[in-house]
């Protein structure tokens, strides 16, 4: 069947497409007009973001950290943040614009998103304090960890024979047990809303 064979649906107007087509790519495709500076971003951040992510992006409770963690990725407790982990700056604009502030998604203006993006990048020492984000500058921002991603799945990374008997050299022993750790909510009775006993 060729395109339009079923003939269902309406043809969208340019305006309709533009309104929903909000995605941004690393090459900058999708970035709108407008701009925002680190300073302007600080105001946005303090008003709309700091209550959850902390004054300097250090996180609050279980709300995500947005900064810090540089050099921890190979450590025992890595901290994955925008500075330490994120490969593309475009993702920051895209995600803040579509999903933040958490309680009011898509409520910021494009200028506000540019500004707070600039501010969060600055919090992570990725751009200077005089940085102004716009559709030309943002795609050029180099993210510190961008070189450390492999975008081809190397799995299966484990090849096993299907051994059926005498499969282990040493005797089997228990190394760790969940018993007594007291981390498991109840799986009987009504929903366990409370803290761990």
């Amino acid at each position: 069947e060729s395109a339009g064979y079923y003939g269902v649906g309406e043809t969208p107007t340019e305006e309709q497409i533009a309104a929903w087509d909000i995605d941004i790519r690393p090459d900058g495709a999708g970035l709108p007009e407008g701009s925002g500076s680190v300073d302007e971003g600080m105001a946005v951040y303090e008003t709309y973001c700091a209550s959850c992510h902390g004054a300097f992006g250090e996180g609050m409770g279980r709300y995500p950290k947005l900064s810090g963690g540089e050099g921890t990725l190979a450590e025992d407790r890595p901290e994955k943040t925008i500075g330490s982990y994120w490969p593309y700056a475009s993702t920051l604009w895209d995600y803040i614009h579509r999903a933040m502030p958490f309680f009011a998604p898509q409520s910021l203006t494009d200028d506000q998103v540019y500004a707070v993006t600039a501010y969060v990048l600055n919090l992570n020492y990725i751009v200077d304090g005089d940085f102004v984000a716009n559709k030309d500058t943002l795609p050029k921002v180099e993210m510190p960890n961008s070189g450390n991603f492999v975008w081809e799945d190397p799995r299966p990374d484990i090849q096993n024979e299907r051994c059926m008997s005498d499969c282990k050299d040493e005797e089997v022993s228990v190394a760790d047990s969940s018993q007594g750790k007291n981390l498991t909510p109840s799986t009987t009775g009504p929903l366990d809303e409370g803290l761990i006993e």
Partner: protein
Amino acid sequence: VGGALAGLAPGALAKSKYPPENPSWTLSLGPGVVADPYGMPSPFESEVIRRNVPWLTADKVSSISFTPLQHLKGIITPNGLFFERHHAGRPEVDPQQHRLMIHGLVERPIILSMADLQRLPSVSQINFIECPANGGMEWRGAQLNSLQFLHGMVSCAEWTGVRLSTLLQEVGMKPEGKWVLAEGADGAAMTRSIPMAKALDDVIVAYAQNGEALRREQGYPIRLVVPGWEGNTHVKWLRRLEVGDKPWMQREETSKYTDLMADGSARGFTWVMEAKSVITSPCPEMPLGQKGVYQIEGLAWSGNGKVKAVDVSVDGGMNWQQAPLREPVLSKSLTRFALEWAWDGNPALLQSRVIDETGYVQPTLHQLRKARGSNSIYHKNAIQTWKVNADGSVINVQLS
């Protein structure tokens, strides 16, 4: 099954008066038909529910709930118990207002109503959906003592909808189109980039789940089903599909759902859920009673196709025995296995190990850690060990 019986070993039940007496419900009339026009489980099953782990997330609005696998039978997950994963809560979408827009590198962009979608040819498929974080709390050690919380981020349903390939044909893809961006209508406006080969293979835009309309928790009125791939790609409350020439590198494919290796490098685009299995009975919630003959039962699945075989060990992986599979064995679907076991009353270390149609053999946690370290969060498809104690209780353990 058997909420009222959960954790009760056979024989441990109070002896009933019936027979010889007749229970009251045999001596009277019950409510008639359509007492419940849409039926609900027996109140005696009220413990069979999705549950969450409060300490795991900041807020239930971006969180997870777990399917009570310990109570389930067969391969279908009833819709009321399908696990939940929301990033901005569960939107209450009005299907009359909802639209799916398809645009980008296409000849003929369209906006579809839900009625439009239902006019197109459809398919039905029984497929599992698993969150790649299923079991992710256990990379560093045994923490939770529960089948539900350790493995309950997987469910399985019969999905019905329109093949993405049918939709892409209808809009007429341009040859440069190599990727499809899927976007949700929720507050997270959830997005994932899907490569064209998968999009044209077995992906569907689903509007039904086990016969009826999708549940709200699973994306009502429409979601993507991306068979065998990590749950997050199955974008719910789908409102937009854009065809492009490059991936979008969205937050959910960079910051999240990438796998950090021990050396600090990270793997992206690890979409497939590799083969996995778990013994569902016995399990921490379903201990053994007296020694005697038991059926070791469990579930196996593979994102790479059909389950070929499952082996069971009762000695921590030293020796294995092949467990018969139950029909039907479907591609990228949960599959049941069961093996009879005469338990002698001594402690035992129970494991299951799936082999899928590609020949892949489910790895140990040891092997996964060696290959990837302990910080990759996702894709922990390691063999699960249950320690059976002499008293019949069952504990989640990790072996040396």
